[in-house]
C-alpha cells in the first residue's frame, strides 16, 4: 500500500471514522488528481460524514452546499447585497463623483454575498473541502451549471469579471440515486460506492462512537440491526440509527437485549409504522435465533 494512502487512512481513523481501503484510496486519488469524488450508496451509510471527516483530517474548512429541488445559481454561487447597496447609494447622494464611479463602488466585492460555491473557490489560505450534498435532488439545469463550475473552478460575475480559484477545493458530491445523474457529471468525477457496513465493521463503529456500551450489548445490537436490514423494509436503518439505538440503550442502562427491551426501543431504528409491524412479525419472534446466530 502506498504510504500516502496509509496516512490518509490513519488520519481518518483519528477522526473516529471507521474506514476501509476503498475509501482511503479514492480520497487519496481525488486529492492527488484534483478531481471531484462522487459518493453513492443507500441512505444512512455515512456518505456525508466522509466529507466532514476529510475536512477534519486536513484541518480545513468544510463548505456545504445542500441541494434541493429548485436550487438556483443565486443561492449556490453569489448574490448582491441589495439593502447594503441601497444604503450606500443614499449615503453617497450628497458626495461628489460621477454616476459611473458610484455604480462601480456598489458593484464590488464588499457588496457581494458569497454563497457556498463562490466561498469554496475564494478561500485565501488553503483548499477547503466543498461538500455538494444530495446532488440528485437538484434539477438537471443546476447540474449543468455545477459541471461548468467544477470543470474550471472559475466563476464569471458580469459586474466584476472572472474570479478564478486561489486554492482548488477538494470536492465531494453525494447522491442517494433518487434521480439518474448525467453521464457528463459522473464521468468528471471519481466514483465511490458505499454499502451498509458488514457486521464486523458496524460493531467497530458502534464501539468507537458509543464507548460506554458493553461488549455483549454492542454485538447483540449489531446482530439485530443486520437482521433488520435483510427484511426489505421501506426505510432501512442506517448507521446513524444504529448509533441512536446504542446511545438509547446505554441511557437506559441495558446490558443485554431481550424481547421486551427491543420492543420498547425499536422506534430508535425503525421510523415507519409499517416497518415496525413487519419487524415485530418477522424478527420479533426469532430474536433468540438472531442473537445466537454468532
Amino acid at each position, binding site marked *: 500500500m502506498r504510504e500516502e494512502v496509509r496516512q490518509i487512512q490513519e488520519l481518518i481513523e483519528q477522526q473516529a471514522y471507521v474506514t476501509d481501503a476503498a475509501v482511503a*484510496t479514492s480520497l487519496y486519488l481525488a486529492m492527488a488528481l484534483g478531481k471531484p469524488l462522487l459518493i453513492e450508496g443507500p441512505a444512512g451509510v455515512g456518505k456525508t460524514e466522509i466529507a466532514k471527516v476529510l475536512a477534519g483530517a486536513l484541518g480545513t474548512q468544510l463548505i456545504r452546499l445542500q441541494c434541493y429541488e429548485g436550487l438556483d445559481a443565486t443561492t449556490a454561487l453569489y448574490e448582491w447585497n441589495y439593502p447594503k447597496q441601497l444604503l450606500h447609494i443614499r449615503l453617497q447622494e450628497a458626495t461628489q463623483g460621477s454616476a459611473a464611479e458610484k455604480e462601480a463602488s456598489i458593484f464590488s466585492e464588499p457588496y457581494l454575498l458569497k454563497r457556498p460555491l463562490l466561498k469554496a473557490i475564494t478561500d485565501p489560505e488553503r483548499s477547503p473541502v466543498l461538500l455538494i450534498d444530495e446532488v440528485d435532488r437538484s434539477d438537471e439545469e443546476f447540474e449543468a451549471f455545477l459541471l461548468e463550475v467544477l470543470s474550471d473552478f472559475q466563476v464569471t460575475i458580469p459586474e466584476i469579471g472572472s474570479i478564478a480559484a486561489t486554492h482548488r477545493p477538494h470536492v465531494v458530491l453525494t447522491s442517494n440515486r433518487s434521480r439518474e445523474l448525467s453521464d457528463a457529471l459522473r464521468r468528471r468525477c471519481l466514483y465511490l460506492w458505499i454499502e451498509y457496513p458488514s457486521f464486523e465493521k458496524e460493531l467497530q463503529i458502534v464501539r468507537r462512537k458509543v464507548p460506554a456500551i458493553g461488549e455483549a450489548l454492542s454485538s447483540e445490537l449489531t446482530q439485530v440491526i443486520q437482521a433488520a436490514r435483510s427484511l426489505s423494509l421501506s426505510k432501512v436503518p442506517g448507521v446513524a440509527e444504529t448509533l441512536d439505538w446504542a446511545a438509547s440503550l446505554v441511557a437506559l442502562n441495558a446490558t443485554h437485549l431481550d424481547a421486551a427491551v427491543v420492543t420498547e426501543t425499536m422506534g430508535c431504528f425503525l421510523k415507519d409504522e409499517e416497518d415496525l409491524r413487519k419487524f415485530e412479525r418477522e424478527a420479533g419472534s426469532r430474536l433468540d435465533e438472531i442473537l445466537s446466530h454468532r
Partner: protein
Amino acid sequence: MSGAAAKSILADTVLFCRALRESGIAVTPAEAVAAVRALRLIDLDDRQETFLSLRSVLTSGVEDFPIFAELFEEFWSRPGQGGRPSAKTERESRSGINLRVPPRSQEPAPRGLAFFLENWAPPTSGDSEQINTPAASNIESTAEKDFDRFGSDELEEIARVARRLVKKLASRPSRRWKPVRRGSRVNLRRSLRASLRTGGELVELSFKKRKHKKTRLVVICDVSGSMDLYSRLLIQFAYALQNSAAQVETFVFSTSLKRISGHLKNKAYERALESLGETRGWSGGTLIGPSLAAFNSGWPALVDKRTIVIISSDGWDTGETEELAAALAILKRRAGRLIWLNPLLGSPGYQPLTRGMQTALPFIDVFAPVHNLQSLRSLERHLLL
C-alpha cells in the same frame, strides 16, 4: 520509474480502457488519461490498491462494478507476477478495433421484470384469435395475476420512470411570477409600493420568482380480465406516480369504477396491493362507457383544462357504444388532453377495429401503446401540456 515501464503502463491502460468500452462501460479519453496518472501515483505492487484506484477512476456507477471486476481479473493479473499489470495484448488489441460504445441506458439488465418488460411482446402467432376472444385472452393470466411477485429492483425501474415524469411535470417554469420572501429577482413594483410607507425610502426589497406550471394527471385503468398482464404494469406505474408528490388521481374499472388514489398513497407496495385486492373486480366483462360516465358525474371537479386524462384499456367494451361516445365527448371537452393507452397497439399486426376502440378514436388526442417500459418512457412527451 523507467521509461520502458511507463510506456508499458500507458499501452496497457489504453488497451484495458478499450476492453471496458467493448463491455459497455463508456470510458472517456479524459478518464483514460486520469487512469494513467492514477497508476503513477499508487503502489502497483499492491493489487487491491490498483484495483480500487482503477475502479474509482474508470467506473461511474455501481452497476459497472461486476463487469469491471471481471475484466480487471482477466486483464491485469497473471499469477506469479505480483499483480503487476501485464496485459493480454493480442486478443484485446485485435478486437479493440471495434470502438462502438453502447450507451449504458440502452442495455437492459439481463434479468428480472425490467428485462421481461423491455423485451416482452405479445406472441405474433395467435394474435387474431386473441383479439376475437377477449375474455380468454391469456391462459396463463391466473398465474400472472399475482401482483406481488415483482421484486423491489423491478419496481424500482418503473418507479424511476414515473419519478422522472412527475418531475418534468412539476418543474416547468410558467411565464407568470409570484412574490416570494427571498428570491433571485427583485420585485420592483412591490418594492416601490412598500417604500411609500417609509416615505419613498427603499428599506426592504421584495422578490419574485417564476411560478411552476401545474399539470394534473388522472389515470383511469382498465383492470378487466383481458387487461390482466398490463394492468399490473399500469397500477405499478400509477402507484409510483402517486407517491412522487404530483397531483395524480387514479381510478380502476372493469364493470364499475373505483377511486384508488388513497389506497396507493403512502403505503408499502405490498400493502397497497392488499387493499387493491379488495377493490378489484376481476369478474365479468368490461363496461367502459358506464365507468367513464360514472367518473364524469362522480368527480367532475378533478378535470379541467390543465388536467391530462389517461385512459388505459384495450377497448373491449361489452356496454353500449353510445354511452361510451357520450362520456368521452364530455371528458374531451373538459380535459386539457385525453390520452388513450392501448397495450395491444404494441403488437405489430394490431388494428384498432374493436367497436369500443372505433367509438373512442375520434375523441382522443393521443393514442399510444403501453406494453413495456420503453412505451412508458416515451409517454413523457405527451404529458407536457
